[in-house]
């Protein structure tokens, strides 16, 4: 039972981790909290749903299209909420993201309807291994998550673009002076972070076999928590914290009470904010 619970937590944790990574990328580079990350996550799920169920596309195509669509939406939000508001205060940008979250949520309702719809998949088998049940979709979730982390790691660590992103995150003025097109980096990072969020949406839709307009709300909050826990701007931190949150929640439900699921994750959040605001992996200077 314990192992099974740990394993369940892992699956949930990996979706948290994926959405939190995108989030951390955005916060780290743009120093902007995006309140519409959860809604972009939802849009990703819906786009993939449309590809699979309406256009009879393959799952792979769904992943690709959802990734691209979420990236586009992200770029749009960045353009309006950040580029157009360069001189304004940070709070205006936050409010723009709140505005976009309302728009996305209600637009999704208008386009796809408010009802919960099931994600049609034909990969739905389960097998048992050492007393733990695995499902094929869980494996897909792990595989995609891990692939994304590796790709992201390579992108940030080994490419010129990745170096530019890291430089901008560290000090955008210095990066600008060194010839980095900071505006382009901002757009790209926001789009990439959103795309990862959208991908997480597809995975969650697939894993729970359900897409519905309100699916982003709670996920957005969990991404916040995971990010803070991980140190806000740290990408490995967000990954570890995502898994950690997934585990804590599952174990809290398993061994304490199901009412405590969210109490726990938010209590941990507040505990960390008070006693170790830089989270598990954050640098000291990340607190601004």
């Amino acid at each position, binding site marked *: *039972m314990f192992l*099974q*619970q740990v394993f*369940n*937590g892992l*699956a*949930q944790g990996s979706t948290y981790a994926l959405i939190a990574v995108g989030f951390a990328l955005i916060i780290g580079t743009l120093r902007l909290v995006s309140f519409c990350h959860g809604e972009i996550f939802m849009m990703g799920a819906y786009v993939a749903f449309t590809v699979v169920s309406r256009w009879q596309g393959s799952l792979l195509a769904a992943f690709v299209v959802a990734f691209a669509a979420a990236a586009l939406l992200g770029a749009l939000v960045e353009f309006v909420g950040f580029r157009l508001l360069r001189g304004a205060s940070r709070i205006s940008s936050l409010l723009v993201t709140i505005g976009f979250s309302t728009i996305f949520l*209600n637009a999704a*309702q208008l386009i796809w*309807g*408010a*009802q*919960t*719809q*099931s994600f049609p998949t034909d990969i739905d088998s*389960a097998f*048992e291994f050492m007393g733990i*049940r695995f*499902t094929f*979709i869980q494996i897909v979730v792990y595989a995609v998550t891990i692939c994304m982390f590796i790709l992201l790691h390579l992108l940030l660590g080994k490419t010129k673009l990745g170096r530019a992103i890291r430089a901008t995150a560290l000090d955008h003025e210095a990066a600008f002076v060194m010839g980095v097109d900071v505006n382009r980096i901002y757009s790209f990072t926001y789009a990439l972070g959103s795309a990862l969020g959208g991908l997480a949406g597809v995975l*969650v839709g697939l894993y*729970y*076999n*359900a897409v*519905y*307009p*309100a*699916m982003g*709300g*709670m996920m957005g909050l969990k991404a916040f928590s995971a990010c803070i826990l991980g140190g806000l701007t740290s990408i490995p931190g967000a990954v570890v914290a995502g898994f950690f949150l997934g585990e804590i*929640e*599952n*174990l809290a*439900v*398993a061994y304490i009470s*199901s*009412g405590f*699921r*969210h109490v726990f994750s938010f209590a941990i959040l507040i505990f960390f904010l008070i006693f170790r605001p830089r989270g598990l992996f954050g640098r000291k200077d990340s607190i601004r």
Partner: protein
Amino acid sequence: MTKKNLIAALLVFAAALPVFAGGGSEAPAQDSPIVIGVMAPITGDNAEYGEFFRTGATLAVKIINDKGGINGTPVELLIEDSKSDPKEAVLIAQRFISNPAVMGVVGDFNSTASMAAAQIFSPAALVQISPTASHPGFTAIGEYIFRSGTTQVHEASFLARWAVKDLGRKRIAVIYINNDWGVVTQENFIKTAKAEGAEIVALEHFIPGDKDFTASLTKIKNANPDMFFVGTQWADAALLATQAQKLGLKVDLMGAGTLATDPLIQNAGMAVEGIRANSQYFVGDTRPPSKFFTDEYQKMFPGRRPHSHAALTYDAVNLLAEGIKTAGKDRAKIRDAMAGIKDFPGATGTLTFDAERNPFKVFAKIRVIDQKWQISPE
């Protein structure tokens, strides 16, 4: 004024204009149509259910008007979006009261909004009939407050007796959604089940919005129940069933009447095969009024499957119409006429109001057999 200021000012002005334009209510002419107000969450988190309200009410009114209206007067619907928000519900209630043409109100969907509105309707003497509000105290708010759906007290006790007395199950696991509906359902189910001699081996709950139930389900699996009661709406039940299947939890499922809908089967497939529920209405219902409703609904909204919420709304509108037919355009008399309704042949069963204005209906026992809701053999 700079250009930006000008644009901003224009924006605000444009936005605020209708506020000042609207508001007044004009007295109705003698032969003006009868207006029935509907308040439902057309947008917001419960928009999915608000849609059933809209379709159910629209259908009922169309059928009434096709038959020549109520005593020859056509009926009109006034649908207002409450977003399930008590603040909006109160404003809508006030609008309905101030509009003398409104003869009765159907709504709201959830108890919070319904009850906030009931505080306004009741003293103002306008009938409110909610198809789905399940809070036990709802109709007690006032003489003018009705329900068209049975209370969870009836429904859950019925299910518990079915599980324990008729099917002989002794080890029951329960999961419920922690809102007023789920709590009342669960409390009454457990009370009756225990009284009948069953043991509750696991009791889990979750808050609205949660979608990962694997932790709770693993616990339930380890408790080894012989019956699993899901006190949720259908969307959560579909998730519960599929996740239970993936975890290898093989147990008979049972749920409330709100599960009796096709999307449950479409979403959960074989995971819900064999699930039991009580029913006020389901798509395969063969009782003549129910069948009539199903056929007409599919004719009017092609491609959509009716749902018990739509049927309950349809009945609510018809109950109001019945009251108006007897009493004429008099809000107070309509209430008395409605309270006296007996053996009304609704799409959700033959209905009689008790002294508390809650309906009493006979439930059908239904089950998913061969991926279709059917009358249960046992």
